[in-house]
């Protein structure tokens, strides 16, 4: 997933660096606030650990091998902000010293692997394992699902950054100047590998490590202190905002999402006969926003509006569901032991 220099235009590199900067700023501020003098050696040693971790070849079922990033693991053990700094440090050393990932593309690589990956991974981990004790199976499940989600989110960002290049930067004759594949080609080629190989590898290693940590060093897993809980909520809003900002990407893609064809599109796909049942079903379910567009509004504005309506609906549902769950748990809540972690 390390993007070398030359695949992204310098403009993209600049934009991604600017996108990563606020996260670094916040992470540094958070670290400075909680800084005791132990922070520097601790972050350094864990960063060194994750550098070595990234070098390992992990044998996968079926005979192939894969490398892992371990970003979610680091976020679980250290917390997401420390993980951002730790992995950024590792990526910097890799870029400068081993030519692994470009120096100009440092911002982009950090955004994908040191910011999106641990934040998404940690968020999902927390979602699945909230209020679970250190040795609960829910925590193990959270680490597996979280690391899978994290690495695939990072891969998605990588694929989009690469896939936008030919559209944005080409010569008058249509020669792509940087990465040559558009979104239609880069998305499947990056995502299939990550969904099927790198994702499972990451989930497998993270899960196994968390499993052994639970058995022998469970105090390393309790770094999520209760007091921090309130501050975490904005991660979710941040993620949602990032997704919202990415909405215009949908406008660049031609065609329809796989499996979401309307009847007329099925015909153009070469499926001339349409199952009778489908035809009948379509009229049964009157879609409020057909083709995600408000009637009598510009197509673009309509599309973006429907994205926001969709997100509002989904977050509303999640919020209601979450509240329900918390009520149910509140009666038998088992507070995590006061987290005195790395001392």
């Amino acid at each position, binding site marked *: 997933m390390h993007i070398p220099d030359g695949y992204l235009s310098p403009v993209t590199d600049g934009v991604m660096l600017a996108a990563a900067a606020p996260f670094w700023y916040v992470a540094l501020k958070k670290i400075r606030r909680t800084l005791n003098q132990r922070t520097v050696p601790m972050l350094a040693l864990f960063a060194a650990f994750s550098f*070595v971790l990234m070098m390992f070849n992990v044998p996968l079922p079926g005979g192939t091998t894969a490398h892992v990033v371990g970003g979610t693991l680091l976020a679980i053990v250290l917390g997401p902000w420390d993980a951002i700094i730790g992995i950024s440090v590792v990526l910097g050393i890799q870029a400068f010293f081993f030519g692994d990932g470009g*120096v100009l593309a440092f911002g982009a690589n950090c955004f994908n692997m040191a910011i999106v990956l641990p934040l998404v991974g940690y968020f999902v981990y927390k979602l699945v394992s909230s209020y679970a004790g250190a040795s609960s199976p829910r925590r193990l499940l959270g680490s597996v699902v979280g690391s899978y989600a994290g690495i695939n989110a990072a891969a998605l960002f990588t694929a989009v950054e690469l896939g936008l290049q030919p559209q944005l930067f080409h010569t008058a004759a249509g020669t*792509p100047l940087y990465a*040559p594949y558009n979104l239609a080609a880069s998305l499947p080629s990056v995502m299939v590998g990550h969904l099927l190989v790198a994702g499972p590898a990451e989930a497998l290693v993270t899960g*196994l490590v968390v499993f052994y940590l639970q058995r022998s060093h469970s105090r390393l897993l309790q770094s999520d202190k209760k007091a921090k809980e309130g501050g975490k909520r904005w991660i979710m809003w941040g993620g949602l905002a990032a997704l919202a900002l990415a909405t215009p990407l949908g406008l660049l893609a031609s065609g329809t999402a796989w499996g979401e064809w309307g009847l007329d599109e099925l015909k153009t796909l070469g499926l001339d006969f349409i199952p009778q049942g489908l035809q009948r079903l379509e009229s049964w379910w009157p879609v409020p926003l057909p083709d995600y567009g408000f009637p009598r509004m510009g197509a673009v504005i309509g599309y973006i509006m429907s994205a926001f309506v969709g997100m509002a609906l989904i977050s509303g549902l999640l919020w209601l569901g979450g509240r329900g769950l918390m009520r149910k748990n509140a009666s038998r809540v088992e507070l995590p032991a006061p987290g005195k972690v790395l001392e």
Partner: protein
Amino acid sequence: MRSEGFLSHNIAGLSQALESVIAADDLSRKPGLLQGLDPRAKLAAFLLLVVTAGLLRNLALLAVLFVMALALVFFSMISFSFFLKRVLLFIPLFTVVIAIPALFITPGTPIWHIGSHISVTQQGLLSAAFLFARVTDSLSLGILLVLTTRWMDLLSALRWFRLPGLIVSIVGMTYRYIFLFLHSANNMFMARRSRTVARFSGAANRRWLAQMLVANLVKSQHLSEEVYLAMLSRGYSGEVITLDNLSVRRRDYLCFVSVAMLVFILLWVNYR
């Protein structure tokens, strides 16, 4: 994968990483042209050149940049075979493989027909060439910088360019302990291999790897505590104080100015 293959593979990878860094450290002490320059001048010139490699839209000019890098390799007493092996072996090769489909699927003027349906387009060929040239140029420049600059000097340069001191000290310490961890991981793989007679299944290897990772994770936490105590007993109070004895001489200015002029000329020729 068989356990023997899995262990050897990892041992080879780890040893290679160690070796390449040791080689870089040796080269950075040679009395060559680039080794004698101030790291700040080198870093600034390097960044200018890499951005230029990204901005050029002319294959001939990208080739000029590569030739210039090779000339610097010569004057910095680095052997060509060592340099080319380090530059070309992995990432550009990988880029070629990645770029092959682009030859065919980039829409444009067909220049070479294979069979009746498939053809190589001019745009596809050019685009693949651009990608390869840019990747090779940027990588050559980066490796040139690393091979001729000592790590601690590079860190001082970064500090001079206003990278927060907290980050600089973390990076410096991380770099130091990477080698300890590479060594100890390598030893663990070696020890495992030397006491392995039977073949292990993939699942057993994975379990072992995970246990080893946990051991290393816990070790890094313990070690960080010990390092902290060691720092404390040497008077560490949260501030990192370093000896930056960097001094800019005339040749450093000369280096930077000539690189800036070269960059200007290249961009002017390209965009005039």
